[in-house]
């Protein structure tokens, strides 16, 4: 009985998909949201005295379909820990507490404003791999610029838009705005708490559609 139900659903779904192809189906609108204070703490790393210890701790996962953080093992698209951002696609780099990737997420960093990135260049999409994350770590390699002494601020590099393929073939683009709690307009690395992501994103919920 259960199998039949599933079959019906599957057929209906395939039917819908083919309708989609025929453009008979109305596309769902994109969603534009702002996420504030996504907390992505980490244990270890380089402390204020410069001592280094192994980085650990769970990644904070985010799901574009719901627009919420999640603890699900599979239903996530990107995940944050400290300044590191990983995606639900590719192979583990082998870091401590790294979640298992089950989806087909991929990402690249485009130059522009959130509005000016209007499409996805699928050829540029890459996944996490053994040699490194798709979003490179380190100042100016990926999404942020570290100012160094004396301010020690971590600022999202202006004009860097993360273009993301979600775990199930949808697309999203995000612009990170702040790494500090409550996105202060004048952050102070010694006062404001870090590991708090604030970002704007646009999610294209229609599978395979590469325009925003």
């Amino acid at each position, binding site marked *: 009985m259960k199998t039949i139900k599933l079959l019906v659903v599957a057929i209906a779904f395939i039917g819908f998909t083919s309708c989609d192809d025929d453009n008979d189906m109305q596309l769902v609108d994109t969603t534009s949201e702002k996420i504030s204070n996504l907390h992505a703490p980490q244990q270890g790393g380089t402390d204020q005295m*410069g001592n280094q210890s192994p980085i650990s701790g769970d990644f904070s996962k985010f799901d574009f379909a719901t627009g919420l953080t999640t603890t699900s093992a599979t239903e996530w698209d990107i995940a944050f820990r400290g300044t590191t951002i990983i995606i639900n696609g590719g192979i583990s780099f082998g870091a401590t507490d790294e979640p298992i990737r089950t989806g087909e997420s991929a990402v690249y960093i485009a*130059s*522009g404003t959130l509005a000016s990135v209007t499409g996805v260049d699928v050829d540029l999409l890459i996944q996490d791999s053994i040699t*490194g994350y798709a979003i*490179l770590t*380190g100042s100016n*390699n990926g999404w942020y610029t570290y*100012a160094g002494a004396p301010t020690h601020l971590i600022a999202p590099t202006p004009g860097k838009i993360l273009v993301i393929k979600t775990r199930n073939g949808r697309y999203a683009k995000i612009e990170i705005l702040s790494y500090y709690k409550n996105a202060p307009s*004048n952050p102070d690395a010694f006062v404001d708490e870090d590991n708090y992501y604030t970002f704007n994103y646009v999610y294209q919920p229609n599978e395979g559609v590469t325009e925003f």
Partner: protein
Amino acid sequence: MARRITLILFICFFGGFLSYSQEIQAVVKDSTKVNQLDEVIISATRTVRQLSSLPLPAQIVSKREIKSINAIRLNDILNEQTGLTTVSDFGGGEGIQLQGLDSQYTLILVDGVPLVGRSAGTLDLSRITVGNIKQIEIVKGASSSLYGSEALGGVINIITNTPKTGFKGKLNYRIGTFNTHDIGASLSYKKEKLGINTFINRYSSDGYDLIKTDNLNTVDSFSNYTITTKVNYQFSKDTDLFVSGRYYTQNQDYNASSTLKGESDIKEWNTHIKLRHKYNKKWSSYFEFYATRYKANEYLDNTDDTRFSEDFFNQLLVRPEIRATYNPTDKSSFIGGIGFNHETLDRTDFIAKPEFNSPYIYAQYDGNPSEKLNIIIGARFDSHNEYKSQFSPKVAVCYEINDKISLKSSIGYGFKAPDFRQLYFDFTNATIGYTILGYNAVSSVIPALDVLGQISSIIVPISEFNNELKPENSIGINIGADYEATSTLTFNINAFRNNINDLIDTRVIANKTNGQNVFSYYNVNKVYTEGLEVNAKLRLNNQLKISGGYQLLFTKDEGAERAFENGEVFARLTPSSPSFQLKKEDYFGLYNRSRHMANMKVFYIVSKWNLDTNIRGTYRSKYGLFDTNANNYLDKYDNFVSGYVIIDFAINKSFNKKYALGFGVDNLLDFTDSQNISNIAGRILYGKLNIKF
């Protein structure tokens, strides 16, 4: 706003002086014309040369000016010259910026031979006392055709005193704010064939602290000594020998944090021997030998007296040179030379004890094909064991249109050899964990780090480091005019452009497993500096001298210009607002460059009271020290260091020509910017005593 007010104050202040001077002019109009001796300059051509007909942009700072402003170190006086500003580097050294070029591109000479010891590229000008200086010569524009490496932006030559007939002695002492003492004594003896000149200086200070909230001083207390001796011996009318020695030593506290304390020590010696022989009216030759060593050691101890770190830097330069001058007629002269530079450096964090060997040859023609035309043509060839040989030509022309106006133009090639650090550095920051590698160190150190498991990914393949790192080089063009409006009023104007290629910069070549990067040096940038310099000088009746200078400057990185043009650069209005695209005109230019710099000086002598007084002001417009909005470029949305005005005042009175008392205030307005400018200490009051015998 405050900035604008200080600027207005500055203008009003000096405007007042100007109008005052005009009144004086009206009064003294009918007095006898003052004849001024034409100044001579050595550095521009390596021959004694009249300044006025020189086709190169050059300035001379006289002993008289140095004395009347009571300067003690070289940075005090260079800071006040048009188009020059002193900038401090992260190592604390204070170097000179000339025509918008960094301090590492200006060669600093003492009596024609270079000082060494640029641990981070900057030659610290406060190392040099001005107590025994006869004049300072500043030649702008690429001068590698005579001097080789480093003379890319220009040359500053410090000419020290020569003994005068008889036995003379001088004592001077200056005491000032921050418990600063400068004591100097000089003895000079000359009789017939022998002349000896000895000078001793001690300079010490408690230093100062601009940021009171931390436990560190901005400048820690220090004391240093300079001892120089010069001997001239004339064997005959045609043969003379010059021997000089200089020794400098400094000890300074070195406090890196509340728990790390230590000392830094500098020891430097120079020895310079020159034998001149004149064969006949036309031919002369010089045999010159120069050697110098610069040693710096520093250490930091933990609170329990265990050693935290120790650094050393030990550089040696030896240079023999032979040169000859040939003057076939009154109207033309040739100079040619051949020499050899031998340089070694032993330094902490180096992969080797490198040795540079570089033979060189140069020649120059300086002549007047017609009465109104002067031409200088010169070239130099430097061979080198570590990088590509360099050929540096230069041409300069001066044309006298009439008695009042002469046009000057020059074009020259300049280069700066990669320094030891850019080739051999192997340094890993102990606290943060990043690594900097010299170009020649990459191929051995990266594989070694990889074996240790410290490399996570290589970004620039090692094979890219198989070629040699190229010297930074430039073409400098200067076009200007001198205008003698009246016998008392002169103007000069000079437009310049320096195109620099193969600028050496750092880039990330690999990522480390600790999340940090490995950096190395590479030739990449093309930058240019261009601008205009204007000077005006008014002398009245030998009593009043007013001078003003202004430099307009644009400095750009061509790569950055392109990035802005292509719309690749973005910014945010606040650190957490959405980014927007920047336009071409939003690019400000290179760091630490001010678009406008100006100075104004008034010197006044009251002969009947044996009194001289002066007031000087310098203005520097806003500049950016580093990128503050995370896009890695200096654009108009960055935070800038505000423009500022420094006003200095001095008054001196002499008694019986033997004693002189002086008093002065440097930085009258007590300007400081504790966040951005570490080398401006605030208001300094001082008193001075000179005794001659």
